[in-house]
C-alpha cells in the first residue's frame, strides 16, 4: 500500500482540475480529449509522473465524457466517439428532454468508465495476450461488423448503404499512407489538390463541418427564425428523469461497456468504432429497438457507456504492450517518455506504484466526472436558451479553433469545415443520409488497410473465412446484423404501407428519396 503516500490533496485537486478542464474541452464542439491531453502534456514535466498522470487521466475521462453535451444539445458530436449519441440525444432534446438525455448519458458514462477500469485492473496482461490474437483479418471483420450498422440505421436500406459507401469513398481520398504500410501514393484526386489533400480530409473537421456548419446553413436558409429557440428544451422538472429509465437496461449497459473496453483494447481500431459497435449491437439484440434513432434512452446508454469504457480499454495495450489503444493514449505515451519511463509488457510488474496510482486516478476521475456533470446539467442544458444569432457565430468560431488545432495548425482543415458543411447541406437536400455517410467515413480508411494487408499477407479471399475461430464468430455476428437489418426493413415497410392506406398522404410514399421532408 505504498502507493497511498502519493495520494494527497494535490493529487485529488489535479484529478478534479483535469476532469473539469477535460469536460470543457469535450463539450466545446471541435475540441477533443486528445487535444486536452496534448496541450497539458508539457505541464506534466514539472508535476512529476504520478501527479502528471493524475491530471492527464482526469483530462482523458473528462474529455471523452464532455462530448455528450454538444451531441445532445446541438447535434454536433463534441468528440468523434460521441457520434452515436447524437442519433438519440438530439431527437430527445428536440422533444424537450435534453436534460433527461444528458442525465442518462452521465450515468451510462460512469458505469462504462468504472466497468472498463475494473477490467483493466483485473485482466490487463491477460487481455493484452488476447488482443494480439487479432491480426489484420480479424480487425477487418470488426470494422465490417461496425459498418453493418449502416444497413439498419437508415430509413431506406439502399439509400443508407449508398451513403455509407460514399463515406468510405471520401475517406480514401489522399495517400495510401506509408505509416499504415501503404505505398504512399495518392489517389482519387487531381494533381493540383495534392498540396492540400495529401493526407486526405481529417476526421474531426469533416465531422463538425457536416454536423455543425451544415446545420447552420439549413437554419440560415429558413431565415434563422427566433421562435423555438427558448422552448426547444424544457428545463427543470419537465425533463422527467428518473432512475427507472435504466430499468431493464442492465444487459445493454454491461454489453456496451464490455464492447467499449474491448474495442479500446484493439490497437488501430479507432475509438469511434466502439460506440458505433455498441449501438449496432443494442439495435440488433434489444427486445424493442424500433425507437432507436428517434430519441430512445437505450441508444444513449449504449453509446455513452461504450465511449467511456474506451478509456480503460485503450489503457490495456498501452500499459501491457507499450502500444496505445487510441489517439488519446498515443499522446499519453508522451507523459511516460518525458519522464523516462518505458511502457511495454513489463511496465506493470516493474512500476507497481505508478500502476496503482493510475488506477486510483482513473476511478476517481470517473466519480468526479459524474459529480460535476450530474449537478451541472441543469445549467449546461440552458445553452439552447441562448438566442441563435449569438450562438451560431460562436459555434462557427469554436469549430474553427477545433479544426485548426486538431492537427496542430493546418489551415486546410478549416476549409474542410466549409467543404463538408456545404456537402452535408446538399446531402440532406437530395435525400441521402448523413449518419451512414459519416460512419463510412470514420471506418473506411481502416477497412482499406486491414482488407488490403490481409490479402497481401495471405493472397486469398478465403482467409477471411478460415483464418481463426475468432473470425468465424465475427462472421456470425455480421450475418446476424445484416439479417436483422433486412427483417427490420420489411417490418417497417409493412408498417408504412398500413399507415399509408390509412392516411392517403402521397408525401410518405417514398421515405428514402424524400428524406429531406424532415428539414422542411
Amino acid at each position, binding site marked *: 500500500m505504498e502507493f497511498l503516500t502519493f495520494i494527497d490533496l494535490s493529487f485529488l485537486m489535479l484529478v478534479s482540475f483535469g476532469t473539469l478542464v477535460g469536460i470543457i474541452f469535450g463539450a466545446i464542439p471541435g475540441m477533443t480529449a486528445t487535444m486536452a491531453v496534448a496541450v497539458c502534456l508539457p505541464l506534466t514535466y514539472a508535476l512529476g509522473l504520478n501527479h502528471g498522470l493524475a491530471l492527464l487521466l482526469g483530462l482523458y475521462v473528462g474529455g471523452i465524457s464532455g462530448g455528450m453535451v454538444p451531441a445532445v444539445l446541438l447535434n454536433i458530436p463534441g468528440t468523434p466517439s460521441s457520434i452515436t449519441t447524437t442519433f438519440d440525444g438530439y431527437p430527445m432534446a428536440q422533444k424537450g428532454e435534453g436534460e433527461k438525455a444528458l442525465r442518462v448519458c452521465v450515468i451510462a458514462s460512469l458505469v462504462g468508465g468504472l466497468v472498463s477500469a475494473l477490467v483493466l485492473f483485473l485482466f490487463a496482461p491477460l487481455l493484452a495476450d488476447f488482443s494480439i490474437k487479432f491480426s489484420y483479418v480479424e480487425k477487418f471483420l470488426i470494422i465490417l461488423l461496425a459498418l453493418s450498422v449502416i444497413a439498419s440505421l437508415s430509413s431506406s436500406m439502399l439509400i443508407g448503404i449508398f451513403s455509407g*459507401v460514399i463515406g468510405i469513398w471520401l475517406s480514401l481520398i489522399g495517400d*495510401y499512407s506509408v505509416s499504415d504500410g501503404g505505398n504512399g501514393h495518392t489517389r482519387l484526386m487531381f494533381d493540383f489538390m495534392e498540396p492540400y489533400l495529401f493526407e486526405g480530409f481529417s476526421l474531426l473537421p469533416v465531422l463538425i463541418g457536416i454536423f455543425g456548419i451544415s446545420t447552420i446553413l439549413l437554419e440560415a436558409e429558413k431565415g434563422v427564425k427566433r421562435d423555438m429557440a427558448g422552448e426547444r428544451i424544457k428545463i427543470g422538472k419537465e425533463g422527467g428523469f428518473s432512475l427507472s429509465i435504466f430499468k431493464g437496461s442492465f444487459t445493454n449497459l454491461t454489453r456496451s461497456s464490455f464492447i467499449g473496453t474491448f474495442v479500446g483494447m484493439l490497437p488501430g481500431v479507432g475509438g469511434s468504432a466502439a460506440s458505433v459497435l455498441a449501438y449496432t449491437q443494442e439495435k440488433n439484440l434489444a427486445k424493442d429497438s424500433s425507437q432507436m434513432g428517434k430519441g430512445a434512452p437505450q441508444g444513449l446508454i449504449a453509446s455513452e457507456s461504450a465511449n467511456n469504457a474506451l478509456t480503460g480499454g485503450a489503457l490495456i495495450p498501452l500499459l501491457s504492450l507499450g502500444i496505445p489503444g487510441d489517439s488519446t493514449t498515443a499522446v499519453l505515451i508522451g507523459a511516460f517518455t518525458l519522464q523516462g519511463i518505458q511502457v511495454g509488457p513489463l511496465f506493470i510488474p516493474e512500476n507497481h506504484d505508478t500502476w496503482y496510482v493510475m488506477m486510483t486516478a482513473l476511478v476517481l476521475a470517473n466519480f468526479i466526472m459524474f459529480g460535476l456533470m450530474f449537478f451541472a446539467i441543469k445549467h449546461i442544458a440552458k445553452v439552447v436558451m441562448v438566442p441563435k444569432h*449569438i450562438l451560431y457565430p460562436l459555434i462557427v468560431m469554436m469549430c474553427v479553433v477545433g479544426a485548426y488545432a486538431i492537427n496542430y495548425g493546418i489551415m486546410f482543415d478549416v476549409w474542410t469545415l466549409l467543404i463538408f458543411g*456545404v456537402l452535408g447541406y446538399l446531402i440532406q437536400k437530395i435525400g441521402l443520409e448523413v449518419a451512414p455517410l459519416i460512419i463510412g467515413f470514420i471506418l473506411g480508411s481502416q477497412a*482499406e488497410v486491414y482488407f488490403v494487408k490481409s490479402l497481401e499477407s495471405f493472397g486469398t479471399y478465403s482467409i477471411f473465412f478460415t483464418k481463426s475461430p475468432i473470425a468465424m464468430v465475427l462472421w456470425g455476428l455480421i450475418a446476424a446484423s445484416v439479417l436483422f437489418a433486412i427483417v427490420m426493413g420489411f417490418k417497417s415497410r409493412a408498417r408504412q404501407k398500413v399507415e399509408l392506406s390509412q392516411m392517403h398522404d402521397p408525401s410518405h410514399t417514398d421515405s428514402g428519396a*424524400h428524406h429531406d421532408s424532415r428539414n422542411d
Partner: protein
Amino acid sequence: MASDPLSVSIDFETSHLFFPHIVHWVLAGLFALILVTKVVPFLAAVKRGERTLPIIGESRDSARFFGTLALISAYFYLMAVVGDLFPYTGYGFLFVSMAFVLAMSLMYLHEWTKKALIIVVINAIVAPTLAWFVLAKLFTITLP
C-alpha cells in the same frame, strides 16, 4: 493454393488503387439501383407536379443563406491573411473572429433593438478574446 478461385495477388506499387476500385464498382452498382428504384419514380412525380425538385424548387431566405456562405468564406480567408501578418500570435483569429461574430450576429438578428445590439457587440468582443486568451495564451495552442 494455385487452383484456389479466391486467390489474389496485390502488387505493392499499385496497392493504393486496389480498394478504391472495389468501392467504385460497389458505388456504381448501388447508384444504378437507386436510379431505377428511387430517382426515376421521383422525377416522374416531379413531372406530374406532385413533388418538387430539391434545392431548386424550394423557397429559401436567400440573403441569409448566401450571406452565411459568403461570410464564412471571408472569415476563413481573412483569418489566414491577417494571421500571416502577425506570425503565430493568434491575432488573425482574434481580430477577424470579432468582425465575423459581429457581422454574423447582425445578419441573423431580426429586431434591432438597442439592448440586442449592445449584447451583440459585447459578445463579439468578449467571446473571441476569451477564446484567444485561454487557448493561445494559457494553453499555447497555435492559432492562425
